[in-house]
């Protein structure tokens, strides 16, 4: 297992380096000359060269890349060309909001999805399964951001059950923070709940018809014990995998959810920076999201080896 983990760690590091090169080159491919933008259109060649030297743009590309990485590792991601604020501060202010939203949504997705999946598997061919299948098919087909818009109109504005927008920091008031995030998180979690439910159901069905479960039942163990101790344990592995696979969708969903509920998260920062062509912010946001994506995927894989004894022994995933 140690060998597998080391391999995996080294792969992630390599991917991270390659991804940072892509981001770096991507910014260089942007239209417009940053030195010209800073010095102004009428600047003489000498001033332009000075600005270029100051920005490090006169160095060869590999040197520029290393400088970029060195600064980024030191927490210096540049300044917003629009507001002049250090980008790292802007990310520091917005990232926690998105993380809270994503974690809350995943929590809802896992709990609701596993509950639905277990019900569908235990009551196979009866109405709970039909209900659960209908739910998952609908949740996977209906665009959840559309449901979000409808939820704002009905649940928030007309019925007044939830706030339609806004964000409260949990450090200020934990209960209000949960109250404000519940509707966005439920909307974001919906389609992921459907995926978790489908996977839980199929792995539970497989487990419940397996020989070792029949043996356990024959031994006289209660139905509940069998379902939860034997069946559910297997589906935990599946759920871990699903969470890993769903991450990309979760990030995209978070950006949309933030837009609908006007939450001050990293998605809003990303969109604002794209529309105002604030390149340092775009570069930093893309880098931060990609890096955290790679790291979380690594974590999921590590978790996976801990949950599934088969991987622990053979040292290979799938």
């Amino acid at each position, binding site marked *: 297992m140690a060998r597998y983990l080391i391999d995996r760690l080294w*792969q992630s590091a*390599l*991917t*991270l380096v*390659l*991804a940072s090169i*892509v*981001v770096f080159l*991507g910014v260089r*491919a*942007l*239209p417009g000359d940053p030195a010209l933008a800073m010095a102004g259109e009428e600047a003489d060649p000498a001033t332009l060269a000075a600005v270029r030297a100051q920005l490090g743009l006169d160095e060869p590309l590999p040197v520029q890349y290393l400088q970029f990485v060195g600064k980024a590792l030191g927490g210096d991601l540049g300044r917003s060309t629009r507001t002049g604020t250090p980008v790292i501060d802007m990310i520091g202010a917005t990232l926690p909001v998105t993380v809270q939203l994503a974690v809350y949504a995943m929590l809802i997705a896992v709990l609701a999805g596993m509950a639905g999946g277990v019900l569908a598997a235990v009551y196979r061919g009866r109405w709970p399964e039909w209900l659960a299948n209908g739910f998952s*098919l*609908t949740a*996977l*087909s*209906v*665009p959840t*951001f*559309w449901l979000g*818009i*409808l939820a*704002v*109109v009905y649940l928030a*504005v007309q019925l007044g059950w939830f706030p339609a927008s806004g964000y409260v920091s949990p450090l200020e008031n934990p209960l209000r923070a949960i109250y404000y995030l519940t509707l966005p998180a439920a909307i974001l979690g919906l389609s992921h709940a459907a995926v978790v439910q489908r996977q839980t159901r199929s792995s539970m069905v497989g487990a419940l018809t397996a020989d070792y479960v029949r043996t356990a039942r024959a031994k006289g163990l209660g139905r509940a014990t069998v379902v939860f101790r034997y069946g559910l344990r297997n589906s935990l592995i599946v759920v871990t995998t699903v969470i890993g696979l769903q*991450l*990309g*969708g979760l*990030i*995209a969903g978070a*950006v*949309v959810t933030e*837009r*609908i509920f006007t939450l001050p998260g990293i998605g809003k920062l*990303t*969109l604002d920076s*794209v*529309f105002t*062509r604030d*390149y340092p912010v*775009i570069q930093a*946001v*893309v880098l931060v*999201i*990609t890096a955290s*994506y*790679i790291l979380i*995927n690594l974590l999921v894989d590590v978790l996976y080896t801990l949950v599934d004894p088969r991987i622990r022994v053979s040292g290979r995933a799938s």
Partner: protein
Amino acid sequence: MTTLAVPAPVRWRALQKLARNPMGLVGAILLLIVVVAGVFAPWLAPYPPAEVHFATPFQQPATVGFALGTDDLGRDVLSRVLHGTRASLQVGFLSVLLAVVVGVPLGLVAGYWHRLDAIVSRLTDLMLAFPFLVLAVGLAAINGGGIGNAAVALGIANIPTMIRIVRAETLRLKDTDFVLAATAMDAGPVRILGQHILPNAISAIIVQATVIMPAAVLGEAVLSFLGLGIQPPAPSLGIMLSDAQQFLFRTLWPGVFPGIAIAVICLGFNLFGDALRDALDPKTVSEGH
């Protein structure tokens, strides 16, 4: 043809199995409606999609002249839904095409030559490192939004899975007797991959395409909703939802129909894809036998 692909009777049986699956049939009918609506949108739509009628904004559905009502600028919702469906299908088709054109050869190469597998795997990891929205953000920053931007971002996002599926199929088929026989008959790698392995991997590729399509349609709606995909005044279901959101408190209708259209497109592909997977999988025994 001297290919050793799946013999025709198996495909025929798969088709029969597909026809007997009620859910698949519902999916096929939905898809037929969607494709006809999309392909013939310019002829079916009563108005040009961007034509404004300032005298009649916010008309209710079933108004004379505007079957599904009008939006804030008096544009005909039915015409815009039809053209938006067309745009959604275009993006979906282009991203499937990109995923197939790039993913299939790479998957074949990775599965066939063990030495190249590591390189392709790193490339796959690299592509997987960028969530599709981040890709779309980057592309939008470089070339601005647009239908191509959405299709490329969604296509790239779907390349890794396509590579993995084709790679797995190649690995499985590489050791079969008929490939061994072809090798013994001095067939080169191009011939083996093109004539023996690819035809047998087609089922898996088609099934994956039915998975990519609805995801791409949803993705296009999301990107256009955020302003990163198709740019107004070009019609898109996502843009319609974004426009409708601003006037939700006056009327809900302009936001209802594009949402239903997206749901119908995705439901069609999901149902049809599920049925197709069951039909092409030799392990699922149909009830009839």
